[in-house]
């Protein structure tokens, strides 16, 4: 079942060559996610509602994966929400596209937006709020002054108290 490579190559022939890849990408949003990003620019969160089961999807999807029907009716959710779970990162993993490494600790919060029955939206939480983070805590969004229609239009959530 197991064999060992018995060839003993001289060490100077065992070479590793290092390559750093830098790849320029552009991702079209499609019209449904386009509405979402335009909404962020106007400090609004748009979800879609499934005409069959009635659930809202945040960010919006053009089809409910549970019912397999088109869902193109938009509803506004939030702006506040409830933290259902969270991840506090102490280990700085590099951004796979840019190689940039975040400063730690930082945290992601899994938020059920007001008006959303079960779908979860994830964003960062303000670093200063990390010590008070727990399930059930209420949060509100903090917006970037310059908004261009990207996820960075929202800086992070902060605890709403």
């Amino acid at each position, binding site marked *: *079942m*197991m*064999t*060992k*490579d018995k060839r003993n*190559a001289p060490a100077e022939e*065992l070479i*590793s060559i290092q390559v750093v*890849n830098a790849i320029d*990408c552009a*991702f079209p*949003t499609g019209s449904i*996610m386009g509405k*979402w*990003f335009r909404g962020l620019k106007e400090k609004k969160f748009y979800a879609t509602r499934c005409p069959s089961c009635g659930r809202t999807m945040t*960010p919006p*999807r053009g089809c409910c*994966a*549970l019912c397999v029907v088109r869902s193109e009716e938009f509803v506004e959710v939030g702006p506040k929400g409830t933290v*259902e*779970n*969270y*991840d*506090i*990162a*102490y*280990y700085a*993993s*590099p*951004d*796979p*596209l840019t190689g940039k490494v975040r400063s730690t600790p930082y945290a*992601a919060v*899994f938020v059920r937006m007001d008006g959303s029955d*079960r*779908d*979860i*939206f*994830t*964003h*960062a939480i303000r670093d200063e709020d990390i010590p008070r983070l727990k*399930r059930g805590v209420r949060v509100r969004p903090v917006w970037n002054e310059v908004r261009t229609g990207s*996820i*960075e239009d929202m800086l992070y959530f902060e605890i709403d108290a």
Partner: protein
Amino acid sequence: MTKKKNRNVGIIGIGMTEISSHKENQNQPEMINEAVRAAIADAGITLSDIDCVVHGNMELFEMIHQPDLWHMIGTGALGKPGFRITTGGTTGMTLVAAADNLVASGMYDVVMAIGFNKLQEAGSTTGGITNMADPLWYRHLQTGALTSTSANLSIEEFGEARARKAAMKHRIMMDKHASLNERAHRRFGLEYDQMEDLMKNSPPLIGELRLIHMCSQSDGACVMILASEKKAKKICKKPVWIRDHIAVHREETASNAYFPILSETSQRVAARKLFTRNGIDNPVEYFDVFEMYDPSAWWGIEWLRDFFLLEGDEAIKMVEEGDWDLDGKVPVNPSGGVTASNPISATAMLKPAEVALQMRGDAGRHQLKREVRHGLASGFGGVMWTELMILEKDLNW
């Protein structure tokens, strides 16, 4: 829903490399070739007996596309029909499931499945996994498969002390199993009296998830050869039979996976459906071994409950009482599991491979003392996809 096989399928050959953190003495085709040669030798056949080759890995780790083409010199697939499969963490078991389907359908008599990853080559496995997140809104936050969300929920349900202890006990048990397995990557020689120390001093990665809880980043390849009943009986003295398997896909975003929006996890759905259609009422009684794809100790203790359709604290109690140990009610991961060895796209194939070796009595130092007749193996991948497979020693179900 019932599922009937057109014909029975047996595992007739198993080959694997040693699993390690670095394989600087081999390139990819050379590493794969080592496992291919071992599987063919194990089956006692030649390359010309193989009708079809299925090949798979997660490309984003090595950053090389169509590796099946340039691996030809290692796989021996030149001129043979073939498929390439890449389903994330589940790849290894999807390869076996596909090979099983290809043989059961009558399309091919003998199919070789090859799963591998050489995670050392791209350097950052977590960075690679993060690449699966939606680039428009989630990639800036995801940290690979590192998450504390499961731990948070276990702690809320069972209390901090009990949940932390159960996760660490599971982890040390896995290390004890791995220490007996000469092919396992990480073998620390941990003892149960180190629990308190590890809970405090292992470096924290994310929330309650510490370095010691998390799976390794490994290099390795696994190969399995499957054959129709007729061929299997002719070629092989101890074929192991693939009874049934199921794949269950989860929600459409990673956010929903980390806070399940459905009442059942994909692990539980897979187990419920698979056991129901096979008439297995009591999986704890039925199975003699379970090889689980447990990417972290926290997910391990959570999923044992789901895979065995247990309720409340039943699974954690079984952790506490040693029921998942090598001599327990259901031995879990005699191989040492994924926290010990994780060459990702070989990982989910190592699960049924280990079950089959246990059934044959060829597992080596970690061979179970009991007779292994009924085995279960699972695969896992983002976003919470589950593969679950039943293997049988005898063709009598």
